[in-house]
């Protein structure tokens, strides 16, 4: 017999675990498998210290120290002809490693090669902005600041880009709750009506299946409308039967065509005939 497991909050937990699931890993190849990449790597090692290097999905991945990011990207852009900075962002590893992984994805249109420069910074430290080299970094670094709280030094306009400026917290951190912290949950109420309106408006309704049948301030049942805010709990709901035009009977030129239905006059049969 299976051991009993408590069923409280069972929907909130992960309900399915594949016992045979193996996290896929990408095959890493040596940098010397590709002649173009090995030349790039050897050229870059003269400029900065490279901690680790490998090929992954035909990308050259280089791990550098965070203080070398400007010189490495400048070298890749000006000497190695990687003329596009395609993508720049961070990955949250605060819980496991105590910091963030920052990656710079670059593309060379002349060599048709892609290069990824990776670095790791401790939580609370800043990184130098690559905005002077690539204008693309302007918005990407602002997004990185907005979502993770990583400051890019010497950035021309280090402000939030997606969230409002008076937002509290950085939403893409793993520690940030999906439904928002307290400041986020009351954001629009605090901003528009003020903090004292919290009690009047009430908590957010996060249950997508919630239906309050007796709420007469926001909903009215079609055909069963009552005045705004009427209390219809405990059987106080007024009887609003569906009325049809024919209820009074239909007469054409004084001749009754449809006689009105009278509930009192009707007879219920006790058994089937």
């Amino acid at each position, binding site marked *: 017999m299976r051991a009993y497991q408590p069923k409280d909050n069972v929907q909130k937990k992960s309900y399915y675990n594949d016992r045979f699931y193996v996290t896929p890993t990408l095959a890493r190849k040596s940098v010397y498998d590709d002649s173009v990449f090995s030349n790039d790597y050897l050229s870059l090692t003269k400029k900065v210290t490279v901690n680790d290097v490998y090929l992954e999905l035909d990308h050259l991945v280089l791990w550098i120290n965070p203080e070398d990011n400007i010189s490495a990207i400048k070298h890749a852009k000006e000497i190695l002809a990687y003329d596009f900075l395609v993508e720049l962002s961070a990955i949250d590893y605060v819980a496991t490693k105590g910091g963030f992984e920052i990656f710079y994805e670059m593309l060379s249109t002349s060599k048709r090669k892609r290069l990824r420069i990776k670095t790791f910074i401790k939580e609370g430290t800043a990184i130098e902005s690559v905005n002077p080299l690539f204008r693309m970094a302007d918005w990407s670094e602002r997004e990185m600041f907005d979502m993770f709280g990583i400051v890019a030094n010497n950035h021309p306009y280090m402000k939030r880009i997606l969230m409002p400026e008076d937002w509290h917290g950085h939403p893409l951190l793993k520690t940030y709750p999906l439904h928002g912290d307290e400041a986020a949950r009351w*954001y*629009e109420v605090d901003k528009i009506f003020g903090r004292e309106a919290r009690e009047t408006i009430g908590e957010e309704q996060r249950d997508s299946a919630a239906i309050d049948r007796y709420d007469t301030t926001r909903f009215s049942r079609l055909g069963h409308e009552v005045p705004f805010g009427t209390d219809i709990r405990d059987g106080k709901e007024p009887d609003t039967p569906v009325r049809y035009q024919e209820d009074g009977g239909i007469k054409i030129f004084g001749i009754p065509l449809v006689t009105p239905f009278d509930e009192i006059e009707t007879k219920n049969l006790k058994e089937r005939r």
Partner: protein
Amino acid sequence: MAQHEVKYLSNGGAPIALTTVDKLVNFGRSNSLWPMTYGLACCAIEMMATGASRFDFDRFGTIFRASPRQSDVLVIAGTLTKKHAEFLRRLYDQMPDPKWVISMGSCANTGGMFNTYATVQGADRVIPVDIYLPGCAPRPETLQFALMMLQKKIRSQPCSLAQKAKRLI
């Protein structure tokens, strides 16, 4: 063919139609509902389709206006983010009374599938809503039906009621 002759012997004998102020005012209001040109997300595409020739809002007297000062209906068509909530409230406040609000689609009603930190969980947390319109996104027919329900609501109420400002708080 226009009739210039007054028929005193038919129609009760006089060229007069009797009605109430309520009915007259509500007739005017409900048949010239001017919504604001205001779209937030994909529901706005359906709203545009409803306004365009196939579904044709114009035959209801519903003409989209480019300014909140000239509108009396606000169709919240799409996802309302928390960043945008204050602007929606400001636009609503700029509309002259009487004014009505149609919350179009799941996102505007309850936050919909965006059960996240950045989305307002129901536009009625910010402004009072008259008609909630289900769907993701609602078909143009649904928006037409919602407009007709709103017309019905306006006609069924005394016209002085609409002048009373609805307040969330």
